[in-house]
């Protein structure tokens, strides 16, 4: 892993450089099929997500970044390496690590409120507590009038709001988001990017966010991890400025800021090398 502290480090204000690692992916390698014969998706990737940090992983499509997420969530066992939460082996998937999937993965047979309450019911949260937290999430995500709708009655953007609410209602220590806005139209994506930015800023979630969009990475990330093409390795880690004005505002305004443009150019250059050299 090559840690970049190059020319982009100027102006970084890391609020908590000493804060402990919340989620660690340690030397993760993943083969689908027999090692040496099957598909080598990820090779020796290490990522450390500190408490309250927003880490974005970018890379060309098919580079194994989603695999990294499924391994991080505990849905797949790594072939080599291990996943740690608070320094201890993470074990099977569970409510401390909530996931927002690219294709929403809402349960089609359940209404919005049933979907959001699913995890609370599975983990034995009391009925009154369930209602309180449900009401809170419906309010935050603006879903109150859709509580009795089925997912198939909602637009893609609304469905993804439900999926985010379903993840946040668990009050997770770690939030894993796998290209959550990849399936949405541009306008809806912009709105949700801004909302996720705001949520992170207000609630200080620890987030591992996967995307192929460089803009999204620059706008949302505290740090950006650039991956190589398959087998995915970590090409570069870039620290972004935190708590600067352009990150708290609208994404269109941010995109015009010279600093944003500079980072986007650098990261896009790194990603492009991986696409062109295929």
């Amino acid at each position: 892993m090559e840690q970049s502290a190059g020319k982009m480090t100027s102006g970084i204000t890391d609020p908590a450089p000493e804060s402990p690692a919340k989620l660690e992916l340690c030397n993760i390698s993943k083969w689908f099929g027999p090692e040496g014969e099957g598909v080598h998706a990820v090779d020796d990737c290490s990522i450390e997500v500190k408490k309250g940090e927003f880490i974005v992983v970018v890379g060309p499509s098919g580079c194994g970044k989603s695999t990294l997420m499924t391994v991080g969530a505990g849905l797949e066992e790594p072939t080599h390496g291990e996943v740690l939460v608070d320094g201890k082996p993470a074990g099977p998937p569970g409510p401390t690590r909530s996931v927002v999937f690219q294709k929403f993965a809402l349960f089609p047979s359940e209404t919005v409120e049933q979907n959001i309450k699913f995890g609370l019911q599975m983990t034995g949260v009391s009925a009154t507590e369930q209602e309180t937290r449900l009401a809170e999430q419906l309010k935050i995500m603006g879903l109150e009038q859709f509580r009795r709708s089925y997912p198939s009655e909602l637009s893609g953007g609304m469905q993804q709001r439900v999926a985010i609410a379903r993840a946040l209602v668990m009050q997770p220590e770690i939030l894993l988001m796998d290209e959550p806005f990849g399936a949405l139209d541009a306008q809806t994506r912009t709105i949700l990017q801004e909302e996720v930015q705001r949520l992170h800023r207000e609630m200080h979630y620890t987030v591992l966010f996967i995307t192929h969009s460089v803009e999204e990475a620059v706008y949302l990330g505290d740090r950006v991890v650039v991956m190589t093409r398959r087998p995915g390795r970590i090409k570069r880690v870039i620290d972004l400025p935190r708590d600067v004005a352009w990150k708290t505002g609208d994404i269109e305004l941010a995109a015009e800021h010279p600093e944003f443009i500079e980072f986007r150019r650098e990261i896009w250059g790194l990603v492009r090398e991986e696409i062109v050299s295929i």
Partner: protein
Amino acid sequence: MIEKRLERMGVMTDRGKATAYGIVSLSLLLILWICATSLFQWIEPRVLPSPAQVIKQFAWILTEPFSGLRLPGHILSSLERWGWGVLTAGFIGIPVGVFFAWNPWFKTFVNPVFELIHFIPPFAYIPLAVLWFGASTATQAMVVFVAAFPSIVINSQLGVAQVEKIYIDAARVFGAGQLRTLWRVVLPAAAPSIYTGLRIAISNGWMALVGAELVVGKVGLGFMIAQGQENASVATIFVGIITIGCLGVLIDTLVQRSERFVLPWRKVAS
């Protein structure tokens, strides 16, 4: 022509169209039947009775016992056997199908036997059923069961196998164990396919039942038809055939309609 006119009047929906076509084609059949019998006597009454004769016989069987029972009695005993057979097939078949899909090793192990069994026609079991249960309700119910079982198992298994992995992943992430994942996520997702299996089972069972009743038993619609043959009463046979057809359509419609209550989230998608 009628359709065009109705369309102009603005009362023609797609569903209305289908109903209209249905009514027209059935009426044509009836008119043809009337022409062939009462009107022009193209066909002799002992080969094809007229609608009037069939209606008369129908009224007769409704009020007077035929071979011990009136028509509703025959219908009820047929429905009872059919119900037992289909219910048992559902109660055993759905869990078996789900278990097959949930445990692929088990499927590999049992499938050869199952493949073999499902190529044996249900009627081949009639002699066996008679030997096992005599001339009781269980005999025909067993034939219905045999006819209904495979489609329920196969479709339940397909339904579960086709559930996208991402839903199971989501259930795991949010803390559901195997059983609760199965109950809350997998079964509802597989339900439409299970429903299809049940519908096929219901019609297969109905056909097998009538076949079985032709051979064994002292009551039921199939038996009534067989008695019609014994007494050379073609009208009775027609009463039986028409009743069987109408009941089949009725049952299938009810099952189809029930889907939107049992699977309410599907009404939006369809």
